[in-house]
C-alpha cells in the first residue's frame, strides 16, 4: 500500500485533488481511498487530504502519518506545518513554488519543485493549482496515468473547465516526465 498526503490551504482544492487522484487510481485498476483531514475548514487555513493506493481492499481508517508521497500546494505552509513529517528517504515530495529553497527533506527523498501557480494562471486563468499538481504527481509517482487523470477531471468539471484544468495537468505532467523541473 502507498500513501499520499496533500497539504494546502482551505479553498485550494486539496480535497478535490485527493478525490480525483483516487478516482484516477481506481480507474487504473487499483483500490483507492481518499479522505480529508477532518479539520475546521476555513478559507486560507492549513488543510490536509489523504489518498491510499493498494492492490487489495483498504481497511485502514487512520490518518496518514508516514506518507510515501506528499504534495504541498502552498510553500508558505512549510513555515508553519511540518509537511515532511513521517516521510521516508524513499518518498517523493512535490512542492508548488516559484523559488526553490533548501527544504528539510529526509535524506534520499526525491524533491520536485514546480511553479504550479504560474501554470494554472496561464492555462486556467486562475491560481487554482491542484490539477497541475495532480499532473506532476502522476508523472512522479506513476500511481496514476495521465489518461486516467483526464477521465477523472472530465467527470468532475464541465466542458471548458475540464479542458483548461487538464491542460494544466498535462503541462505539469510533461515537465516532470521530461525532468524539466
Amino acid at each position, binding site marked *: 500500500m502507498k500513501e499520499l498526503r496533500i497539504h494546502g490551504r482551505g479553498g485550494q482544492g486539496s480535497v478535490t485533488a485527493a478525490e480525483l487522484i483516487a478516482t484516477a487510481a481506481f480507474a487504473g485498476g487499483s483500490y483507492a*481511498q481518499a479522505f480529508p483531514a477532518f479539520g475546521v475548514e476555513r478559507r486560507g487555513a492549513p488543510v490536509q487530504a489523504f489518498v491510499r493506493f493498494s492492490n487489495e481492499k483498504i481497511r*485502514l481508517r*487512520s490518518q496518514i502519518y508516514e506518507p510515501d508521497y506528499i504534495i504541498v500546494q502552498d510553500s508558505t505552509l512549510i513555515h508553519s506545518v511540518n509537511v515532511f513529517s513521517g516521510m521516508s528517504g524513499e518518498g517523493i515530495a512535490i512542492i508548488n513554488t516559484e523559488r526553490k529553497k533548501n527544504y528539510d527533506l529526509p535524506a534520499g527523498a526525491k524533491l520536485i519543485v514546480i511553479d504550479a501557480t504560474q501554470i494554472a494562471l496561464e492555462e486556467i486563468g486562475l491560481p487554482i493549482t491542484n490539477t497541475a499538481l495532480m499532473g506532476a504527481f502522476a508523472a512522479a509517482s506513476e500511481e496514476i496515468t495521465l489518461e486516467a487523470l483526464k477521465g477523472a477531471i472530465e467527470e468532475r468539471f464541465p466542458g471548458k473547465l475540464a479542458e483548461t484544468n487538464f491542460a494544466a495537468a498535462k503541462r505539469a505532467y510533461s515537465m516532470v516526465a521530461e525532468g524539466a523541473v
Partner: protein
Amino acid sequence: MTLQIMEGSIAVAETVRLCRPQVISAYPITPQTHIVEGLASIVADGRLDAEYICVDSEFSALSCCIGASAAGSRVYSATTSQGLALMGEVVFNAAGMRLPIVMSIANRAIGAPLSIWNDQQDSIMMRDSGWLQFYAEDNQEAVDLHILAYKICEDHDILLPAFVCFDGFILSHVFEPVDIPSSDEVDKFLGPFAPYQRLDVKDPISFGMYATPEYYLEFRYEHDLAVYRAADAVSRYGKAFGEMFGRDYAALVEGYKLEDADVAIVAMGSICGTTKDAIDEMRAEGKRVGLLKIRCFRPFPSTDIAKALAHVNTIAVLDKNVSLGAKGAVAIEVKEACYGSCIPVYDYILGLGGRDVCKQDIKKIVELAEKGTGDMFYGLREELL
C-alpha cells in the same frame, strides 16, 4: 458486482434512492452530511419520485416522517450528533408507534464541548429508544444495511424503525469503491411498502394514543419482544440479501481470526477495519489476537457474543462512547453477555470527538489487556489533565 468510487454519503444517498422512499424529511444543519443534499438533488432531478419535505428542525424532520409513515408511506431521514439529540422525544415516539422508518446516523460526538467529529455517542444515547441499530464497518456495509434495514423493519412481525450507523467523516466523507446494487434487484428484494395498518379517513385509527397505567406496561413488553424478534429477521433477511447480492449479513456479529484467538477485541463500526490490519500484523509476530465485530447492536446479540468469545482468555472492548459514571456502552453489555464465564472483559474508551485511532493504538490496547490493565480512557494527553 460493479464497483464505483464515490463518497460514502453519496453512496448512501444513491442507495436510499433505490429503496424508493415516498417521503424524505431532513434538516440540513451542521453537522449533517452530503446524504440529504444528495437526495435533494436526486429528487429535484426527477431520479426519485418522492416528497422532499424541508423542515425547521430535526424535531420536525422526524415528526414529518412519523406522519408520513403512519399514512402508509415508506420514509427516510438522516441526522447526526446534536440533530439526533434534538429529535430525542420523536425518536421514542416513532418506535413506540411501531413505524418502520429508516434513518442514517453519520455518527458524531455530542456537545458540550462542541465537536463536529466522529464518535458513536449520538446513536448510543438512543440505545433504549426501541429502534434497531446497525453499525457499518465500511461504505459497502453502509449501503447494504440500508436496503436490509427496510426489509427487516417493514416485516409485519417486526414493525420497528432502524438506525443505520456509519462513522461520521471516517466513512461519510471517504471516497472509496462501493457496489451500488441495481435498481431491479433492490425492487425485487424489497418490493413496495405494505403497511400493516395506516391512517385512513374512511377507517379511522389512532397512533401513539394515551396508555394509562393499565396498558402502558404491555405496550413496552410487546415493543421489547419485537426488538428481540428482529434478531431472527436480521439473520433470515441477511441471508436472503447474500443470496441476491452476494454479500451475506446473516450474522449479527462477525469474527475475524477469532477461532484460535487468546485475546479478542470487540468493536463496532469503522474501527474494525483498522483493527483487522493491526491483527494481521500482530498475528505475523505470533500473537493470537482476533476481532468480534458487532454489526447489530439492537437487538443486542448476547448469546452470539458469549458463544463467539467462549474460548478466549481476554476480551478488550473498544468503546467510541461512554456512559459517564459507568463504562462504555458496548463493554457494559459484553460483560453482561459473558457473565458467569470468568473471562476478564476490559473496556477502552477511545476515539471520542474525532481522536484518531491507529494500528499502533490497537496493539497497545492488546498489550494492556494482556497485562490486565483496562476499564480506562485510552490515549489521554496527560499534559492536559
